[in-house]
């Protein structure tokens, strides 16, 4: 087991290196750099050129690309993402840290809700295959699964937030958040979370429910389930103990694989809801060519993806003792 983990972690190193090299090249070869964007507003061309050169030197952009990549790696080895190249010049890690929680909370919330709802639906419709509940839920889930999240989000914002004026959709907190009482703060947060969480969740929920149902149907066809029924166990016992536990393995893998997708796929939704998360930070850094922030975000997300797959693989033996790693 330990050997397996070490092997996987070692294999992750070339992957991460490859990712950082590609990202570094892509963003550095792109025309326009932060110094250029920040001096665009200066009308006097002489001043603008001087400031531009100064800024390039200040950010170290006058060094060759290879050397800068080496410096970046060196800093990374000391777990330092360096200062950001945006106008606020704060350390990248500080900028990311304040954006981490909104995105992570959203991802975890959405994962938790979708699992909590999808597993019962999946089990129930598999246990009562082709009855009315199964038919209705299958159709609804397929439709939900086919609606892209941002295509769902815009009409939802229009109806719920604007026409009916029930919920806010901009940002995470109201402007008067600081003046609210503790209870008011809670209510405010819940209100702001509702819409975006829904948009994040329903797709994964539909996908999970279909997936659980399918796996359950597969398992319920097995011989040991027939044996369990034959020896007179209650249907409830057969489904929960013999069926569900065996259908859990693929679901675990899916969790590991989908969490990064939720985080990585959040740019449009976060921009749409003006959410102070990592996806929007990425979008903003892209617009201002904030190289260190882009590198850090890509690196962190790639790490999360690798970690997710590793955890998914490691969870196999936990849920299914028949699988073991040597």
């Amino acid at each position, binding site marked *: 087991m330990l050997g397996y983990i070490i092997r996987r972690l070692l294999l992750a190193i070339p992957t991460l290196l490859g990712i950082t090299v590609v990202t570094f090249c892509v963003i550095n070869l792109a025309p326009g750099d932060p110094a250029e964007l920040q001096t665009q507003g200066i009308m006097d061309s002489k001043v603008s050129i001087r400031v531009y050169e100064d800024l390039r030197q200040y950010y170290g952009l006058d060094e060759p690309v290879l050397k800068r990549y080496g410096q970046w790696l060196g800093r990374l080895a000391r777990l330092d993402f360096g200062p950001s190249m945006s106008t606020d010049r704060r350390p990248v890690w500080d900028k990311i840290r304040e954006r981490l929680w909104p995105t992570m909370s959203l991802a975890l919330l959405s994962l938790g809700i979708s699992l909590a709802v999808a597993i019962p639906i999946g089990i129930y419709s598999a246990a009562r295959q082709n009855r009315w509940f199964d038919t209705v839920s299958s159709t609804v889930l397929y439709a939900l699964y086919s609606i892209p999240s941002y295509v769902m989000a815009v009409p939802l914002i229009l109806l719920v937030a604007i026409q009916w004026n029930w919920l806010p959709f901009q940002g995470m907190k109201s402007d008067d958040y600081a003046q609210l009482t503790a209870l008011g703060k809670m209510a405010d947060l819940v209100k702001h979370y509702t819409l975006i969480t829904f948009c994040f969740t329903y797709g994964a929920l539909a996908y999970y429910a279909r997936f659980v149902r399918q796996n359950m149907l597969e398992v319920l066809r097995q011989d040991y389930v027939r044996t369990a029924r034959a020896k007179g166990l209650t249907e409830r016992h057969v489904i929960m103990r013999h069926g569900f536990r065996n259908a859990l393995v693929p679901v675990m893998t899916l969790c590991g694989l989908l969490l990064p997708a939720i985080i*990585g796929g959040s740019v449009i939704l976060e921009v749409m809801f003006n959410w102070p998360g990592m996806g929007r930070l990425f979008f903003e850094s892209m617009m201002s060519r904030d190289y260190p922030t882009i590198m850090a975000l890509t690196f962190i997300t790639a790490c999360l993806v690798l970690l997710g797959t590793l955890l998914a693989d490691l969870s196999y033996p936990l849920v299914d003792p028949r699988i073991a790693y040597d």
Partner: protein
Amino acid sequence: MTEPTITQPQAPVRSEGYWRTVWRNVRRNRRGMAGLIVIGLMLAVWIFSPLLATNQPIVCRYEGRWYFPAVVEVFQARRTGPQWINKARPFNLPQFDAKEQLDPDDFAIWPLIRWHEYEQSSDFLQPPSSRHWLGTDELGRDVAARMIHGTAVSVKVGFVSMGIAALIGIVLGGLAGYWGGFVDMVISRIIEIVICFPVFFLILAIMVWLEPNILNVMIVIGLTRWTGIARYTRGEFMRIKGQDYVVAAHCLGIGHGRIMFRHILPNALAPVLVSITFGIANAVLVEAGLSWLGFGVQSPDPSWGNILRTAYDSLNVAPHLVYPPCIAIFLAVLAYNLLGDALRDAIDPRLRGTT
């Protein structure tokens, strides 16, 4: 010596071909066929968009002569016609407004929507009416005309980007699956790198670099979305390369390239096709998303994504703008998903209903 009698070899009974079987199974799937019909409709709308929405008639009689301005536009818009195809004299002048100048008594067949997708007017953000069926946007352009002409983007993005992705994915996946060993290890590592990239991040990063237009969007989506195809192809090649007919081909001394592309690939293609179909749905989605963020198709060129952006920017004043692009994107994605499901069920009935 008597000449040996040569018995004429009996022609073997031809069994139904693989692709025929697949097609027969798809035909039987009602949802899949519905998807296929929607896709066919989208193609038709793309090809004939000038006949559906433009500000000049399809056929008309003007000052005693016959003209076909919208038909000419079909060729012009596709850039398929030879250069000399041009509209006849009064209709090619920018100041000529057919709607005003044509005599109402003369014969004329008009397109369904009598507006051009770029044609601006002073009716800003009007709700749907008999004049503008889906209303107008912030520059007074007819939304129905823009939706019709925006179909082109969604159709092209899906097919071209997945064409690129399929090329990369099949070649790399095929090489990895066929050769195995070191080649497989290197290619698998490359695939893993591309998978670990948050794809949307990468697309965004490249789109900042490239000039945002539809061609670049297609290339970038193609360059980043090939991993699924490569993995399927690799698996299929690994499965097939041990089969008897491939071994037989080896024994006959057939070259590796020929074995890979003539013997294995046709048999490996069906599952890959499923992956491509789902990939098209995804490409449509990514393009609309990019256009929404402003990195895809740029206004004034219409695309469903930037129509949705206009809608988002004027939610308070023009709620009617929201629904057309949303419904169109949803239908397109749904159609490709349904077709993909039908294909997968047709290829392997054991998989029926898996997500």
